[in-house]
């Protein structure tokens, strides 16, 4: 294969008539105007995809990438390598990140101005699309910091979905304003129960399982006893939406309750030592005779299961976005490696097998992004739609990352090269928000009416 100094080996030079770059030049001018300039458009793929978005969404995507590279990237590797820190001893870099993210509006943009910090021009957009764009860019740079910021959004979602003006006004908006003032007030969403992770992710399991967090009726409110585990951001959140079953009943009685850190009897006991996403804590929450007033019931009493499911339908799309971000990170690392590593006197990227690997990785990433965007831009998110995006994107992203790791060989195992961290971070996306097996079954559960005569 001849080395081509003005292009990659194996392809015609840019100036050659047969070059892909010049294909559009052979068409009549009116048709070029319709179809564009083909290969002459030298903007990178990311920018060209951004151009397909509306202007407010494109701006949001650019702002998210800028913030991620400026504020998340510098600490990504160091935070990942830190010893495990106990509850209440968050590293200073993360405290500063939360302040910066808060004042920049990244912690309060689930709602648009004037309620939140989102661009009012995005008010007509489904909540999931801006969230997905942001999450992808943050994940591309650091999974742990992304999760710290995104778990907050997950905690806010059931408050918004409750459509309760009182809850939103009293419990959500003050937190959003606090973030904008530079006093981070994070929210957490607490559903997972000890030894029952998947039970609360699908209806069949829940119908046969015994709840571990139980609410007892008392005058003026409820008393909660039990525990929750693996609660993302539960160690630093100040506002929590927790789901508890009513005494003597099953998950069908699940009810959402809002409570704040510092409520007597409620505390984050510990955080887990995790494989990846290490900048975000997964906390165990303990409830001992915790009183929650009636006014802080989120949604209806016994309406928690619906609220939980609808929250998951919204949040599984951003999980797909995380996977797209991780896959993009792997592509970027592999491309840089292929460009900067010399092999037989020229950069490795001139090798055809490397080009084939990168083409696969880029194409898969682009495909799962297109699928995710299509789902994220719908107002009506069905269980099957969200679950498809979640397991489809996360499984495919892991494949991309592993392909890129194989390209780097032992180099991929070095922490400093970031790829193995991307792998560890992304691996969680196949597990949380329902394992990918649960999500597969969620697709069928939702579509079952089509399969029954």
């Amino acid at each position: 294969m001849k080395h081509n100094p003005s292009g990659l080996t194996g392809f015609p030079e840019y100036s050659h008539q047969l070059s892909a770059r010049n294909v559009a030049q052979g068409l009549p001018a009116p048709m070029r105007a319709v179809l564009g300039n083909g290969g002459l458009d030298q903007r990178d793929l990311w920018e060209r995809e951004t151009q397909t978005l509306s202007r407010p969404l494109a701006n949001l995507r650019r702002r998210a990438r800028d913030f991620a590279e400026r504020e998340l990237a510098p600490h990504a590797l160091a935070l990942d390598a830190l010893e495990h820190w106990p509850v209440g001893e968050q590293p200073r870099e993360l405290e500063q990140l939360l302040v910066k993210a808060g004042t920049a509006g990244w912690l309060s943009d689930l709602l648009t101005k004037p309620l939140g910090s989102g661009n009012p021009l995005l008010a007509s957009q489904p909540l999931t699309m801006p969230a997905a764009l942001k999450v992808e860019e943050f994940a591309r740079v650091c999974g742990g910091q992304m999760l710290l910021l995104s778990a907050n959004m997950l905690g806010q979602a059931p408050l918004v979905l409750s459509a309760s003006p009182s809850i939103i006004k009293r419990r959500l908006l003050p937190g959003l304003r606090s973030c904008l003032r530079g006093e981070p007030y994070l929210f957490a969403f607490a559903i997972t129960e000890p030894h029952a992770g998947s039970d609360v992710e699908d209806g069949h399991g829940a119908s046969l399982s015994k709840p571990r967090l139980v609410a007892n009726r008392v005058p003026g409110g409820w008393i909660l006893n039990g525990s929750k585990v693996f609660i993302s951001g539960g160690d630093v959140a100040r506002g929590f939406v927790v789901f508890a079953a009513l005494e003597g009943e099953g998950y069908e009685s699940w009810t959402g309750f809002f409570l704040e850190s510092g409520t007597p009897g409620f505390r984050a006991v510990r955080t887990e030592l995790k494989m990846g996403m290490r900048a975000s804590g997964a906390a165990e929450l303990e409830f001992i005779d915790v009183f929650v007033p009636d006014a802080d019931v989120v949604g209806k009493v016994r309406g928690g299961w619906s609220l939980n499911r609808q929250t998951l339908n919204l949040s599984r799309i951003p999980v797909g976005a995380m996977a797209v971000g991780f896959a993009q990170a792997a592509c970027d690392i592999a491309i840089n490696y292929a460009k900067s590593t010399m092999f037989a006197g020229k950069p490795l990227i001139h090798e055809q097998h490397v080009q084939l690997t990168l083409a696969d990785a880029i194409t898969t990433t682009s495909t799962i992004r297109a699928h995710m965007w299509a789902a994220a831009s719908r107002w009506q998110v069905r269980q099957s739609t969200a679950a498809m995006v979640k397991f489809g994107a996360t499984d495919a992203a892991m494949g991309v990352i592993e392909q890129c790791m194989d390209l780097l060989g032992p180099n991929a195992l070095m922490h400093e090269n970031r790829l193995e961290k991307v792998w560890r971070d992304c691996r969680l996306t196949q597990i949380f928000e329902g394992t990918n097996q649960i999500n597969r079954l969620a697709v069928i559960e939702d579509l079952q009416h089509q399969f029954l005569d």
Partner: protein
Amino acid sequence: MAMETTAQTTEPLDESDQKQLLRMVHELVKDQIDPLVERPEKPASLTQTLAAIDAFTELGILSGDDDRGLGLWDSPEDAVSRSLSLDILRESARSSPSIAHLLHVRALAHACDAAASQAQGVSTFSCDRTSPTGGRALGKSLTDTPLTGSETQAIAQAWGPPNDDNRLLSLDIESRDYIWYPTWTVAEGWQLNRSQRESFYNQTAQKFHGFDELRPELHRAKNQASSEHSTDAHLGTEHAIAIIGLYNLGLLAISAGAAERALRQAQAYAHVRTQGGAPIEQHDAVAQLLEQARQAIASANTALPAVNSIADHEQRLVEIWRARAYLQPALSRVGSNSMQAFGGIGYMRDMGAEKVLRDLNTLRQLGGSPSELTLRCAGFTKPAKESR
């Protein structure tokens, strides 16, 4: 083509002796290694690990200078002895893949020392570089077909003296006096070289994907000119090909053992964790994951003796690359499936499932990644010899 060794003192063991030895290894692993990995989130200390390794030396698994023949890679030219070595590695990896790998590289280094009649100092073995390692050109270098200029350049760059752009990766737990590693030059072809550790700039990798018990080090030669690179012992092409083959065989055996560990943990969990009123092992979603894992392990355990039985060094090397290219992703998937069966708790380090998976990922990249091995095999276009 027989590999000459200078220190064969013992006849290969008969079948009954082999079983007895494997039982002893099993007990040794239970007594010495299992306690080291009881807390997967907290790697054993250097002292503890060294004590376990000493116990292997005392049993003769890692041979001393006077009793070669009973232990790992003591008679590498003998298929039965190789098979026993593979069984020992797999058994060790069922407890700790990283310690199994440590035994593997130390035994290979010892085999090289013995073959080169080097009794001085202690050594380790490394066969991994941090840059591309030659692909098709490497496979072609094992044939009689002349290499083109760019192929020569590619292999010379990949396998010359370790330098800034292409460092040597060793995985031991402490500094050894010497490192054995393969090189390729136009004049000599494949060789194994022994260099003093002090002839390298050595850098400990701050953090590594797997093998938490080990200390990965990157080495680059202080004098990088190939003609002046400091080496104190050599073994020729036949030894080099044979030892690289053994390294890869051992990696597959360790991976199979590691995968068995992952599956065993997942099966135990799936038996006791209930959902929907039944153990999760009875749900198709989990049963399928576990069965896929069994299939991959069975395939690896079938491939190992088949490849091991090939007498010709070059053909055996290519066949083990071929097997690893196909099986390493499948064995990584065993770790992944097993972790998936745990659900969220599998992501936590104290469960151990994620640790085996990281070790399997590490093994996948050592000795050539699957995509690299595929290219190497594609480059080996020489007709297969009648060698089985």
